[in-house]
């Protein structure tokens, strides 16, 4: 077990090195630098003169080729320093710490909701497979699955923030809160929750549709097995057969999907956070790329990659729990 973990962690470190090196190379080779993109395009009068530009480049280490820059960044990361954001003049660690909460608020809620609804829906669909109500539910889920989130987000905004304005159903158009930081806690929580409803809905419905289809497909695979017949021959009732025999055997692919959906928590939030101006990591990532803010890009890349690897490791470890045939030795 310990050797397995050590081996996995070593592999993880190598993977991280490859990913970060690649992303750093790409970022540095995008046209423009933080210095040109930031000022030159917005206000010509504030354009650097050539000497200042050279000086700034030296300060930020942009005068050296990117492999050297990567090595420096890596050296700092190893010492626990993610660097300072060029455009925001703040430590990257602070920026991420500020943004991580809002992102997990939306994505985490969406993930939990999606799974909570997908499991009963999937089981229901497989138990009633072929009936009219199951077909209707499946159709709705298919339509939802094929509906792009950014379109759904705009529709939801029009409906709840425009058409329903002034009614009890009105929901905020964007942002996370309208209240100052010193408002009473309970009021603030309610306000944030109201702001979170639409982004959470957008992130939930796609994975809900996908996950429940996935569960149904796996259940249908499982109920065809001979051990299901054995269970029925024992006298087990339909629910017992469904849960104890069929569903428990579908947990293995389910755990894989869960592990893989963890990084999607953040990936999917980029678009949603942009549309709803939600102050999370997804939005920060988008902006930092636009501003060529290399340290922030790299800090977030590192975060995302680590989360992906953690999700996979978690899934592999969970296999041992759900499947007695798997052992990590």
């Amino acid at each position, binding site marked *: 077990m310990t050797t397995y973990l050590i081996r996995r962690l070593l592999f993880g470190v190598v993977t991280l090195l490859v990913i970060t090196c690649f992303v750093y190379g790409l970022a540095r080779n995008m046209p423009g630098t933080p210095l040109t993109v930031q000022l030159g395009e917005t206000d010509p009068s504030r354009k650097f003169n050539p000497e200042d530009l050279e000086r700034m480049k030296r300060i930020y280490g942009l005068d050296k080729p990117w492999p050297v820059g990567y090595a420096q960044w890596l050296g700092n990361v190893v010492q626990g320093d993610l660097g300072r954001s060029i455009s925001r003049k703040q430590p990257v660690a602070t920026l991420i710490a500020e943004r991580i909460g809002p992102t997990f608020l939306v994505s985490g809620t969406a993930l939990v909701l999606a799974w909570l609804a997908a499991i009963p829906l999937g089981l229901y669909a497989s138990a009633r497979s*072929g009936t009219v109500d199951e077909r209707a539910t499946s159709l709705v889920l298919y339509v939802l699955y094929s509906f792009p989130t950014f379109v759904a987000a705009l529709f939801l905004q029009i409906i709840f923030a425009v058409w329903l304005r002034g009614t009890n159903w009105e929901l905020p158009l964007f942002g996370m809160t309208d209240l100052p930081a010193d408002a009473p806690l309970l009021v603030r929580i309610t306000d944030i929750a109201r702001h979170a409803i639409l982004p959470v809905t957008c992130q939930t419905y796609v994975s809900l549709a996908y996950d429940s289809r996935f569960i149904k497909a796996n259940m249908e695979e499982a109920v065809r*097995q*001979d*051990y299901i*017949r*054995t*269970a*029925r*021959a*024992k*006298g*087990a*009732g339909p629910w*017992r057969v469904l849960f*104890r*025999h069929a569903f*428990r*055997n579908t947990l293995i692919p389910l755990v894989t999907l869960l592990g893989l959906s963890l990084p999607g928590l953040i990936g999917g939030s980029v678009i949603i956070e942009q549309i709803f101006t939600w102050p999370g990591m997804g939005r920060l990532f988008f902006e930092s790329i636009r501003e060529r803010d290399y340290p922030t890009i790299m800090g977030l890349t590192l975060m995302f990659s680590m989360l992906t690897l953690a999700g996979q490791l978690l899934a592999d470890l969970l296999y041992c729990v*759900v*499947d*007695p*045939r798997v052992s990590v030795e």
Partner: protein
Amino acid sequence: MTTQPLLVVENLQTHFPVRRGLLRRVSGSVQAVDGVSFSIAKRRTLGLVGESGCGKTTVGRSILRLVEPTGGDVRFAGASVRGMNARDLRALRRRMQIVFQDPYGSLNPRMTVRGILEEGLVIHRMGDARDRLARMRRALDRTGLTAATLERYPHEFSGGQRQRIAIARALVLEPEFLVLDEPISALDVSIQAQVVNLLVELREELGLTYLFISHDLSVVEYVSDDVAVMYLGRLVERADAAALYRAPLHPYTLALFSAVPTIDPARRRRRIVLTGDVPSPSRPPRGCRFHPRCPLAESVCREVDPPATTLDGHLVHCHVAARELERSAGDVRAAAASIAEAMAAASAKPASDAAAASGTLKA
């Protein structure tokens, strides 16, 4: 044979709907089992043979209502199985158990052997925890497994051991009747004999009644008291094992027997090779279902579904056999011999001469 039969199957029908098109409308049906009747007396074994896809497995599953029959009836110890409500059916499932062909698929991979064995006891509220353990130990012991098996998972065992677990799983509920659905076909030849002997021992020891489904004719002969032969969803012949193997009357049974390899050159029969494929059970042929492949088929076979002819408990559905029995004045062996001769003559010649060969019978 005089005892009250434990299981009576009467004109059992199991058709599966075939759905086609966008609206998945029922456009026909696969007649997996179409009018099968037999009975099994207590402590006896009926062997059910036939080639793949003839409906033997469906018969076994329909008896236990693991698939729902669409017609006819099954009576177990006098009670109609088809008419039973869910509660009675559950109680019945303790008394009728099944062992499946593939011991790799039939044991839930996520459960320990204890979980697999104990579940049925829990469902049927048999004994408290200590009593259940004793019952499980006894069942494992009977199948030649140790109590240490309990805490292990199915994947830790070999095929033969798994099949023993599957048998112990069925036995732990103390059933009276077992459907053995090709219980040895998935096992290595060296293990097959062990499992067959185990099944025979258990039958004697526990007074069990078996429906032994198999395509292995030698094993069926060894295990069964009576043998029934199925073809395309129907029974074609049924008799006690010795009589059937000595004097098969149905051309299909003959062809089946001729395919069994034997190591005794004196017993080596001429091989009868059937031509053509088994027709689809969704569109069975008119008349006798075997007629498109039967070397002895006559015009009546193409039109009229042969009724049952019974002589000394030997039942056969065949026009030719019925006539031969009549001609030999009830001498089954003589009738069987002349049918075998005609079959041999017919299969030695090209198919077009088959009709002429069957003419020798009339002469």
